[in-house]
């Protein structure tokens, strides 16, 4: 029952964003064309990231844990500079330093995400490189187990990930991006659970050559 209002809010936000975006694309076609990505369409991707996670329980002080993620993504454009994405990946978080006698446990498992993205061209270096900028905002559902155990638990997260995407026309339908993912987890047994790091992603736009002969 508790999931329904959240789903309704998410759906409403999604519809609003899509409507606004479509309106912007129609009403300001010149602006849209100016920032439009030179590579577009549906994209399949694979990415990895590493960073640090911060955890603080109601009973123990803040501590830091290493974390990493690998995932696959599918991005579906709604308009030229805005779309929906879905991801499925593996996420791992290591133990914090045990020197104080108390540590935050490592955990790992599946993360499934859905997000909105917007992107556009930032710069162009002749025919050699297109530099795109974008941002991802979304949420994920995480099913993980604590390390060395079979104790499965769930928590949702919010994700924001600004990125720079490099498109070398010589490589055709492939791009590579660098990102700064930041995540806020809604753990019910922690006062704070968040992470930030660096990410790398490869994207393949299978329809790129067909759209831009």
């Amino acid at each position, binding site marked *: 029952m508790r999931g329904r209002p959240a789903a309704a809010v998410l759906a409403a936000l999604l519809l609003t964003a899509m409507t606004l975006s479509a309106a912007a694309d129609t009403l300001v076609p010149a602006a849209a064309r100016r920032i439009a990505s030179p590579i577009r369409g549906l994209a399949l991707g694979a990415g990895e990231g590493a960073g640090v996670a911060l955890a603080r329980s109601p009973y123990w002080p*803040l*501590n830091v844990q290493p974390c990493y993620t690998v995932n696959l993504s599918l991005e579906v454009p709604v308009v030229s500079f805005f779309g929906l994405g879905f991801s499925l990946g593996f996420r791992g978080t290591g133990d914090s330093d045990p020197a104080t006698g108390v540590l935050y446990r490592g955990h790992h498992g599946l993360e499934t995400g859905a997000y909105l993205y917007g992107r556009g061209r930032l710069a162009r270096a002749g025919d050699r490189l297109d530099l795109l900028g974008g941002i991802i905002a979304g949420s994920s559902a995480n099913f993980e187990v604590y390390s060395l155990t079979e104790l499965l638990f*769930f928590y949702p997260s919010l994700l924001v990930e600004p990125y720079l995407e490099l498109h070398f026309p010589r490589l055709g339908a492939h791009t590579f991006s660098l990102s700064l993912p930041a995540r806020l987890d809604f753990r019910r047994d922690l006062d704070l659970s968040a992470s*930030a790091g660096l990410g790398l992603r490869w994207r393949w736009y299978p329809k790129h050559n067909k759209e831009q002969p």
Partner: protein
Amino acid sequence: MRKGIRPRFWAVGAGLLLTGMTFAGLSACLLNAPYDKYAIVYGVADYEGTANDLQYPDDDALAMAAMLTDQGYQVIQRLDAAATRGNLETVDVPAVAAAAKEDDLFVFYFSGHGGFGGSGPEPAGSDPVTEWIFLCGSLSDSSQTFSDDQLLAAFSPIRARKKVIILDSCNSGGFIGNGLEADGIPQSLYEPGDSLGERISRALNLYANFDGSSADIPPWEAIVLSASGELESSYESPPLIPQYYHGVFTYYLLQADSQGDGNGDGYVTVTEAFDYARRMINRDWNRVNGIYGAAFSPHVSGGPVDYVLFEAR
């Protein structure tokens, strides 16, 4: 204009990241203070009469007390007739409570009979079964037993926030009260465990309904390391083989300081000790005795936090 955006963008991101890491690192360093370790170790082999006597809980307790002493714990040890509820509540817990500070570590170890049955003071809708450990005199006088809730209440005067309860007794997994975790190890190895879908559904349900309370002993009060699941026995050997001359679980727990440092960081946490004992019991005991109905598995509390139990030897 756009050429200036990229360096600023990365600089701000890197700055935020470094600030967070520095803050977390500093707080970890500042809290790296020494702490004291206390343990109460009880072993009951000699129960009223002879029919319910066990062979090795006294040996388990002696060996565990020696190991904990070697690990720097201040240990109170009681065997058989001295291992009573009265001594625990009126002598030993007050002694630790008088000495232990908030940052200290407290370990309670018990080897002896355990059981389950009857309805205890459990919150409505939670675990309907009460589990027990039987101290000396408790087989003829039920007021000398300890239920999961009573055991937790008995330790409440001890201020040490790091509390670990280790139980080498039957049905001891029922002392674990996880608020958010669905355990993939069934409470009896002879009962079908939940499927992955059922565990996911249970984890979602626990998350949605978590209200900060828990039946039994929740991980934020104490981490419980149990020899067996809620619905299964734990064993000592002989008479079965392999012959350990200890409780099977305790036999492997006694090796955890030298064999259990799975990640090689110099510390053996409660979870690492659990993992070592579980793997060894599966490998050496369950493989041989599983066909006779004597397979069992340790369990451990959930929760985001773990404690260092031993320094690796």
